[in-house]
C-alpha cells in the first residue's frame, strides 16, 4: 500500500499556506511533519483526512481497498478528544468503534492497551486530560484502519503513556500500517522520515 | 360515604395524589438501592475516599 501526494497546495482563509508539496509513503513507514506554527502541519493532516479540500494537486492511495475513499481508511487524532463527558469510558469507545463499523469485542483489549481497563464504567467527565487523550488513542486500536494521522499525539501525555503510545505506533507500523504525525519534538518514532514544512 | 354526583373527580384527585407520592417514594427507594450498590461495588474494588485514607 502506498500513499502518494502530488503537488499539494493549501489555502486557508484566502492565504496560501503551502504549495507544490509532494511525498510518498509506503506500508510500514512513518513520517513526522515539522515546521513552525502556521506552516500548515494540521492542515496537511486534515487534508489527508478529507476534512480540508486540496486547492491543487491530488492524494491517492495505491493498493488497499479500491472502492473505499481515502478518508475512510484514515484515523484522525486531532487536538480534541471527541469524547462525551456524560458517557462512560466504554460507552464512548463503543460508540466510535460501532460507528466506524468494527466489531466491539476489541474494546476491552484496546482499553487494556492504553491502560484504562480499570475505568470502563467511569463517566469520561472524571478523567484527566491525559486519560481522555489515552481513551482517544484507544479508538485507533479498536478499529483497524491503515493510515494514522496524529496531530501532536504526545500532548497531555506523561512519559509512561508516551512510551505506551510509541509501542502502539511501532506495532501498527510492523503490521503494515502508515503513520503521518505532526509534532514539535520527538514522539518515539526513531526511523520516521521527516517532512519540513516551510512557509510558502 | 356518599360522594355525590362528582365521585369520579374526587376519586381521580385522590388517585393522582397517591400516584405522584408513590412515584416519588419509588424513585427515592430505587435511587437509594442504586447508590448503595454502586458504593458497595466501588468499595469492593478497593477504592477509598480521601477522608478514610487519612485515618
Amino acid at each position, binding site marked *: 500500500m502506498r500513499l502518494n501526494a502530488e503537488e499539494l497546495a493549501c489555502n486557508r482563509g484566502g492565504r496560501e499556506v503551502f504549495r507544490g508539496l509532494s511525498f510518498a509513503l509506503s506500508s510500514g513507514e512513518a513520517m513526522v511533519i515539522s515546521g513552525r506554527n502556521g506552516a500548515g502541519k494540521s492542515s496537511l493532516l486534515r487534508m489527508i483526512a478529507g*476534512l480540508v479540500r486540496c486547492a491543487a494537486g491530488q492524494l491517492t492511495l495505491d493498493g488497499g481497498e479500491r472502492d473505499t475513499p481515502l478518508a475512510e481508511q484514515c484515523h484522525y487524532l486531532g487536538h480534541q478528544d471527541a469524547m462525551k463527558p456524560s458517557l462512560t469510558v466504554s460507552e464512548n469507545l463503543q*460508540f466510535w468503534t460501532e*460507528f466506524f463499523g468494527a466489531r466491539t469485542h476489541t474494546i476491552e483489549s484496546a482499553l487494556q492497551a492504553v491502560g484504562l481497563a480499570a475505568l470502563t464504567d467511569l463517566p469520561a467527565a472524571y478523567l484527566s486530560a491525559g486519560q481522555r487523550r489515552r481513551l482517544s488513542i484507544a479508538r485507533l486500536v479498536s478499529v483497524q484502519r491503515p493510515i494514522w494521522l496524529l496531530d501532536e499525539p504526545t500532548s497531555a501525555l506523561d512519559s509512561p503513556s508516551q512510551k505506551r503510545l510509541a509501542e502502539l505506533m511501532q506495532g501498527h507500523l510492523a503490521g503494515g500500517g502508515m503513520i503521518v504525525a505532526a509534532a514539535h519534538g520527538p514522539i518515539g518514532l526513531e526511523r520516521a522520515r521527516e517532512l519540513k514544512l516551510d512557509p510558502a | 360515604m356518599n360522594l355525590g354526583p362528582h365521585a369520579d373527580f374526587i376519586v381521580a384527585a385522590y388517585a393522582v395524589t397517591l400516584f405522584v407520592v408513590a412515584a416519588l417514594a419509588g424513585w427515592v427507594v430505587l435511587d437509594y438501592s442504586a447508590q448503595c450498590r454502586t458504593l458497595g461495588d466501588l468499595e469492593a474494588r478497593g477504592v477509598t475516599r480521601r477522608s478514610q485514607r487519612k485515618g
Partner: protein
Amino acid sequence: MIAFNALLVRDMRLAIRVGGGALMGALFFLIVVTMMPFAIGPDLALLARIGPAILWLGALLASLLALDRLFATDHEDGSLDLLMMGALPLELSVATKAIAHWLTTGLPLVVIAPLLGLMLNVELHAMGWLALTLLVGTPALTFIGLVGAALAVALRRGGLLLAVLVLPLTVPVLIFGVAAANAALFGATPFGPPFTILCALTLASLVLGPIAAAAALRHGLE
C-alpha cells in the same frame, strides 16, 4: 446499519443523561403557552378559539430553539470531524442526529400538547387531532431547523441566528399545521387537504433538510 444505530443510541443517551436537554424543549413549550394568557387575558372563549395557533407557535419556537446546540457540541469536542470520516454518508449521519433529537425533544412536545390544550380550554374531542397535526408537523420543523443548526455551527455563531435563518422557512408548516388543527377543531373547512399538504411538507423536509445541512457542514467547516 450498525453505525446508524450507534449514533442514534449515543445521541439519545446524551440527551437524557446529566447535562442533556431532553425535556428542556417541553419545558420551554409549557412556559411559552403559559405566558400567552398573561398577554391576551384569561378569557376562556378567546383562548379556545386561538388555542391551536398558540400551541403551534409554542411548538415551533420550542423545537427550533432546542436545535441550537445540535452540532455545536460535536464541533467543539472534535466529534464532528470524526463523524465526517465514517462509512455512513454525512447526510445520513446528520439525519440520524435529527431523528434522535426529534425523539427526545419533539416527541415530548406532542405528548404534553393535549395537557396544554386543556389549559387553553381547547375542546377535548379534538385534542387527539390537534396532537396528530403536531406529531406529523414537528419532524418537519426539526429537519428544516437542521439546516439552520448546520449553518450556525459553520459560521461559529449560535442562538438567535438559527431562529433568524430558519423561522421564515417554517412558514408553510405553520400555515398548514394550524389550518389542519383548526379544521379538526371547528369543522368549518375539511381536515384532509391541509393535513395532506402538511404530510407532504414533512416528507420533503426529511429529504431536503439532511442534504442541505450536510452541504453546509462540508463547506463551512474546512
